């Protein structure tokens, strides 16, 4: 399997009228960093959950790191890191307890990585999770996702609610250092181009569950295409209509 992710005809129907993901064909090479750019409700989170094996597709199929999306979800989760936009950790635990909690789930865990990045992020170790800011929680969730040294990192609008740009920069630096510069695969889904452009060179556009196109992030910036997810997606939908 030469692709980190390969899907065909992936469709997720919650009801006949609610189709979150429609006929998605996606290929991501090992070591690639890819964005999934789309407005709210376009199917980004559902697609990531299917790739993690958390949700089963209604039709279609695929592989993630060589494991079947439906039948080998446990192996996928052993090798994939996942950080969601609102990193909700267990408030009643301390950071130290949270680390211990996460560590026991994995057969492999890099003990040196966690203290290194806790220090890098200036995160305290003795306070309870409930006393942390949302930004600090997201950084901790990222460090916990990286500690098992995953082959693939899935990020779901991880810095969407960051109010302090310094935290976003730290987040991106850690992803760059631990994943991208080490040739490991990253997929980041977001409604914000700013979130995607710092980590990836290429992105797919997703709109109403469908992948519209795949393009370089630089093209959006240099050709002065709309940086708003809704606008750019509508533009491509119109183009598609005109072409057909």
């Amino acid at each position, binding site marked *: 399997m030469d692709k980190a992710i390969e899907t065909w005809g992936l469709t997720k129907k919650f009801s006949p009228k609610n189709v979150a993901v429609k006929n998605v064909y996606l290929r991501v090479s090992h070591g690639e960093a890819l964005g999934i750019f789309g407005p709210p409700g376009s199917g980004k989170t559902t697609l990531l959950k299917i790739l993690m094996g958390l949700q089963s597709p209604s039709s279609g199929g695929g592989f993630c790191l060589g494991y079947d999306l439906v039948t080998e979800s446990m192996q996928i*989760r052993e090798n994939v890191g996942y950080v969601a936009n609102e990193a*909700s950790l267990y408030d009643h*635990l301390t950071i130290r*307890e949270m680390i211990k909690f*996460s560590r026991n*789930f994995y057969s492999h865990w890099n003990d040196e990585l966690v203290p290194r990045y806790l220090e890098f992020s200036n995160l305290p170790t003795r306070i309870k999770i409930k006393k942390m800011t949302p930004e600090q929680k997201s950084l901790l969730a990222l460090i916990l996702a990286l500690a098992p040294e995953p082959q693939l990192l899935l990020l779901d609008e991880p810095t969407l609610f960051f109010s302090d740009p310094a935290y976003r920069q730290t987040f991106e630096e850690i992803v760059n250092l631990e994943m991208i510069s080490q040739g490991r695969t990253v997929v980041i889904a977001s409604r914000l181009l700013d979130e995607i452009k710092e980590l990836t060179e290429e992105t797919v556009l997703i709109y109403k569950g469908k992948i519209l196109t795949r393009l370089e992030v630089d093209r959006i910036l240099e050709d002065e295409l709309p940086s708003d997810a809704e606008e750019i997606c509508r533009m491509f939908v119109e183009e598609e209509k005109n072409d057909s």
Partner: protein
Amino acid sequence: MIHSSLWFKEIKEYRKLFLFCLLFTILLGIIIPYYYDQVLELPGNISAWEGITASSLHETSWLQWTSVVLLQLAVITGIVLGFSSLSRELTGQTLGFLLSKPVSRREIVTTKAVVGVTLLIFYIFGTSLLFGLLSWKYGVGFPGPDSFFLSATVTFIISVIAYMTAFFFSALFSRSWLSALASILLWGAMFIPELNIAYEDYGIFSAMQEAGFWLGEENAFIPIGIGIVLAGIFYELAVYTWSRREY
């Protein structure tokens, strides 16, 4: 089947609630005998309970306590510990984090269920032992080992069934208040017509009188068997429901 990491997380999460239930029960257990001047006159229709406790323990506060008060508190405690066990992960938005770990849903459900049952063991046998000792200290007689075991075991079994029904509802409903409501309605219905007389004709225990244990054989394995089967059914229903839900 039981995940150690999840086990310690759950114990820590339930620690305060469990201690509250325990202290509340102990406090009530001390107040009630004192309020009734330590010795209670039992109602005449308690004959069904004679099989649960040794006959020599009649009309002691300990008997009243273990057969009636503790039983009702144990059902409430079972519901309190179980009603948000699974749905709390959803309302607290921690489910995405938990499910992203390489752990099966059955393992999560099993660990949570076992934590609840373990806490109930400490709750029932701890309070029973404490009040047995208190009764002995105040001269109303300490229950023999057999009766202590039987009475506490039956109470424990009922509380586990109450816990597992609430646990199942927490898998069925995504909101904790709904599972709490469903549990209260179900167990309220079990205690019809009067909530505080569990052993009356329409109560759940009147049905259990049919079993050999209730006819004087004093065999704890019958209620234990009934408890295991019922708790097992609700456990499997919880696993089934939770494994098929989309998050």
